[in-house]
């Protein structure tokens, strides 16, 4: 397939996943920020400034009040980190691959963008400035991205195209999870590291899965381990690395000597090794940082090998 198409599908996946994770994080932070602290348990810190940092809006941290910060993250298309901007980028990407994705999928992406843009006509909310805006918009984006991925799974051929779409989605998810972990569990900070980490689980939508998989209370360390290593949980970094490996192996013409495939294999093995070798309670911020760097290298290798040397995911100046 065309390198350009592969590239656009990959970024379509990334933008969809980013929109969804922004929505989840906005919702979780919003819920936590309106309340005070718990008297029974301290919690890891992940407020709206953490959210802005996660989404690369750090340069613009003029101390806005929370509702304002959340409104910006939600529906301000001029902020590249907002949910709407991610959805808009996904739509732009989808337009260039309309012949590759199914008509149903295009429609799902298009209506999502239009109703977010139009402040919810027939969509998510009566009035974008209404106080419940962030919650309802986040709900809407979550539901619609699930729908889009579902339509993709049911209507697209499981070929190269689907592989690049999926690969984009999973690499973005793992990057987002790592960003959150690095903000919530900064290196050497021990006070916060003992707190409960419900907000992290809510921000990735893994609360229920965690409770069913792990018996330990949702404190920072077990939660971080779960989000890094639990392969049964689809949005953990390890599970994302697995599916990334599957996607590239399928799409690659010669996976045995393909740099992205080799690099991802190494990441999969490394995560598995760390899971077994690291004692409980060991510091995890180092692994998060290294893994994130490794993912950036994979991103570079992918651009070089599959996208005809197109510039890898670019960094904003």
């Amino acid at each position, binding site marked *: 397939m065309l390198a350009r198409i592969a590239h656009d599908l990959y970024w379509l996946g990334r933008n969809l996943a980013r929109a969804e994770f922004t929505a989840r994080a906005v919702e979780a932070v*919003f819920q936590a920020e309106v309340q005070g602290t718990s008297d029974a348990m301290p*919690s890891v810190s992940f*407020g709206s400034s953490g959210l802005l940092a996660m989404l690369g809006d750090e340069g613009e941290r003029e101390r806005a009040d929370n509702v304002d910060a959340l409104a910006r993250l939600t529906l301000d298309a001029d902020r590249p980190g907002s949910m709407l901007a991610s959805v808009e980028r996904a739509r732009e990407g989808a337009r260039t691959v309309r012949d590759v994705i199914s008509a149903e999928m295009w429609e799902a992406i298009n209506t999502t963008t239009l109703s977010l843009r139009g402040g919810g006509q027939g969509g998510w909310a009566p009035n974008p400035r209404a106080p419940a805006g962030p919650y309802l918009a986040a709900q809407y984006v979550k539901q619609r991205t699930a729908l889009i991925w579902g339509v993709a799974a049911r209507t697209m051929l499981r070929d190269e195209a689907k592989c690049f779409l999926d690969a984009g989605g999973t690499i973005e998810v793992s990057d987002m999870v790592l960003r959150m972990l690095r903000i919530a569990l900064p290196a050497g900070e021990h006070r916060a590291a003992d707190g409960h980490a*419900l907000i992290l689980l809510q921000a990735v939508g893994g609360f229920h899965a965690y*409770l069913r998989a792990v018996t330990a209370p949702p404190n920072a360390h077990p939660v971080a381990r779960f989000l890094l290593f639990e392969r049964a949980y689809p949005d953990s970094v390890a599970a994302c690395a697995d599916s990334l490996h599957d996607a590239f192996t399928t799409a690659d013409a010669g996976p045995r000597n393909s740099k992205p495939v080799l690099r991802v294999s190494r990441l999969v093995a490394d995560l598995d090794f760390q899971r077994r070798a690291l004692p409980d309670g060991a510091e995890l911020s180092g692994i998060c940082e290294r893994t994130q760097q490794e993912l950036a290298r994979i991103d570079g290798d992918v651009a070089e090998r599959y996208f005809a040397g197109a510039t890898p995911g670019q960094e904003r*100046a």
Partner: protein
Amino acid sequence: MGVATDTIEVDYRPRAPFRDELYELDGTPRLAAQALIAELGRLGPEGLVDAGRRRDAIFMQQGITFETSGESGSSHERPFPLDLVPRVLTGQEWRAIKRGLAQRIRALNHFVDDIYHAREIVREGLVPWRLVAGCPHFARAVHGIRPPGGVYCHVAGCDLVRDSDGSWRVIEDNVRIPSGISYVLENRAAMARLVPELFASYRVRPVDHYPQLLLRALRSVAPSAESEATVVVWTPGPANSAYFEHAFLARQMGVELVEASDLVVRDDVLYMRTTRGLERVHAVYRRLDDDFVDPLEFMSDSLLGVPGLVRAYRAGSVAIANAFGTGVADDKAIYCFVPEMIRFYLAEEPILENVNTYLLSDREVREHVLDRLGELVVKPTGESGGKGVMIGPHASDQEVARMGERIKAHPERWIAQDVVCLSTAPTVSSDGTLRPCHVDLRPFAVFGESIEIVPGGLTRVALEDGSMIVNSSRGGGSKDTWVLEDGDDADRAGPPIADTQPPALPDLRYGAWMGQQQQQQQQEPQQQQSKGSARVGRKRI
């Protein structure tokens, strides 16, 4: 807490002589409620009606509903009636309530232990034995059993009301299976979504750690030495009116929700049937009455029970929360003696008062009560949920006369209490205006290694004008209950979420395809690379 200058007057008058939770009697907002009232004024009736509509939609969507039967006998599913005006308690008020509750629950726990062992309080002549033995929830089957840690009342909810003078009184104890905690959590979540601006000037103490507190308490009493204890929530089944709460707690704690058919006792050990065979259960949070739990020991025709469970419990192989037989402590006839219990077991003076109560089995008291029945509240001892209650001042002469006959026939089945002037709180009417409605408060306590009480609790509100019956089965609603941080709280653990400097993260990337032609035209591709952004991708099209 400063009040914005553009405050819009809220049209509300507290109804004397009742104390109002948010307003002084002269009609000015209380200090702690000023910012809240100002926000309510800014929202206005339309804003409140609108938020109410969204609340109903969200509750229906999430299935937070309850069934009501209409006059024709047909049942409707209705969204849980949450009132959008929260009730506000200052940190200081809350600390007093909390200390009072902890004291009361400790005394009740001592009482249950005593009744099934040495019965010292009876021998001292403080509580008449015939009242204890005559209590329908007295369980002979568990005589002499002491559960791990000596804890019987793992989960307790006492109903409090506030009198006109502002004092708190306990109107009822619930140490069997108090329900309502799921609504406390769901109400808070809904409020934060629907009317976040109300929270703006406050730091409200969160409640969402309750499931973790409960799980920790259950694990701490579970008799498992070697491994992590297996805890289950036991529900009578989906037809139960509180099934939503059972499922909610099981999900929030991440434990199995079991029914009787999932459980089996072998050799005095409780197991559950799983796909991998029998798995041992160490602690059961049961949500059904004693009568049904074990057909071998209690009601023999119970289909909801697990034969042999009491035997396993007696052998100490499983912890049951709440323990069997705790119903003896929340009987309405025993209620009168709780202040005595506190003095007897703890050698302390009660912090929370009782409502004046008359035991009708005593002839003199009974005659006195029958004379002024129209001024009193009469309650059946064995019932809960507001069933069979007669409020004298609101009842017709006929009703009062009929009640007099029933008391004469079975005096031991009834108690009479002075009428308490339940406090009121502003409540949203269907047109968005505020009116005073009567409220009570049910805080929830968890007793494991120590007693933990979730800040606030369930505020129930009587939605009918002038009514004082707050039970949701009788047309009551609920309110979110805020306990405010006041800065000098000794029992607060960590500092508030600090604005720590997050570590430097790599910038987000944005995909941008540079076609070959475009790249060839670029003299310096490197430069292009550094300028790329979402905008570049967009211009291309």
